[in-house]
């Protein structure tokens, strides 16, 4: 390994970190909002809403993320929906996040003992009210580990955006090695940056888990 090439590659690849992080952040925010909606639909009294949420989860968890990205990038323009590569990637990542995090949120909610909502009802709280004030806060504790696990997966998946030409870290790495045919150095740098990012998220998730854990 030629360390000179390694040090030259770092700033070139780091230029893509902004795109990587912003795709991650946007998809996480949009996807989580969608996931919460899907989880509540799944637990609602309406059969139609339940089936919609089940169908959504089955479809978007059954299709590879890359196919979602290609669909958003290559197919949607055919029906007049033209996204920039960056937006197409966010659409794909958000759908993926919504489908996976919906399961996490749903299992967190159903893990809360039903006595909690019965007691809330007995106290005259509306469903909306006790979901927000009683059930979700307690479910949160159970949701944290799988939620952050999915978030770390999402961060890694943003590398796929290179295949729809988003200039993020992986694309910039490919650009380096297709110019100088030095493979090991830029790929090593890229791997180390991802490893650092996912390790930060891992430490963060342990801290959050600790913060929301029951103090006894």
């Amino acid at each position, binding site marked *: 390994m030629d360390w000179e090439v390694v040090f030259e590659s770092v700033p070139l690849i780091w230029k893509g970190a902004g795109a990587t992080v912003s795709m991650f952040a946007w998809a996480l925010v949009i996807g989580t909002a969608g996931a919460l909606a899907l989880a509540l639909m799944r637990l609602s009294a309406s059969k139609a809403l339940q089936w919609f949420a089940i169908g959504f989860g*089955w*479809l978007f*968890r*059954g*299709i*590879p*993320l*890359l*196919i979602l990205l*290609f*669909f958003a990038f*290559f*197919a949607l323009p*055919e*029906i007049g929906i033209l996204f920039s590569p960056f937006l197409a990637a966010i659409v794909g990542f958000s759908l993926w996040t919504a489908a996976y995090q919906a399961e996490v949120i749903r299992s967190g909610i159903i893990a809360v003992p039903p006595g909690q909502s019965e007691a809330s009802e007995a106290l005259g709280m509306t469903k909306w009210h006790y979901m927000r004030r009683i059930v979700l806060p307690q479910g949160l504790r159970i949701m944290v580990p799988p939620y952050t696990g999915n978030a770390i997966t999402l961060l*890694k*998946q943003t*590398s*796929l955006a*290179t*295949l729809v030409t988003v200039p993020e870290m*992986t694309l910039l*790495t*490919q650009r380096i*090695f297709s110019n100088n045919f030095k*493979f*090991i150095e830029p*790929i090593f740098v*890229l*791997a180390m940056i*991802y*490893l650092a990012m*996912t*390790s930060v998220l*891992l430490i963060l998730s342990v801290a959050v888990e600790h913060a929301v854990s029951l103090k006894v």
Partner: protein
Amino acid sequence: MELDWGVVVRSWDLLMQGTWVTLVLFFLSLLLGTALGLILALMRMSQFRAVRWLSLGYIWVFRGIPVLVILFFSFFVVGRRLGLTPVQAGILGLGFSAAAYKAEIIRAGILSVDPGQAEASEALAMSKRHYMRRVIIPQSIRVIIPTYMSNSILVLKVTSVAVAIGIVELTGITRQLSNSTTRPIELFTAAAGIYVFLTTVLVVLQEVLERRFALKT
């Protein structure tokens, strides 16, 4: 615009060829990942600290970097040095990636077996190797199946990333066909349908296996 689903029928043979490559990538990387995962899981429970740390380090690195980057490494670095074909490099990369996840799944399964079982085996003078193979691992299978299978569904979907190192599997052939026919909607919908079919088969298989290995009471 008009949709022309005939393009899917006309491309069917090529789509099936791509599906075949996807299945080859899936089965062989699953095999490699499971064998390596079992070794890593046993290493994590070794009495030697260095062996435990080696396994932990492997898992941390391979779970911490994207599959795409692992594939770049196996194709552009390892594959070029050893003269591997793209498919061989793909199986290697996907298998080494899968191993990190399988190791944790197998380890959790082994740890779930009541320690009394190992103690009783020792009291019966079985060697560690012997009771691992005959007592502990068979009992852990029941716990391993659900997580192992849902992880395998992810492995199947992740094979699509192999398109990035030039392997013409289902996603790759679909992208080529959609470029040459300018019918991306129909073709990507067809590919999505094939993937959903394959993952659904795995979900059904999971149900069957869970039932077969369930405790009969």
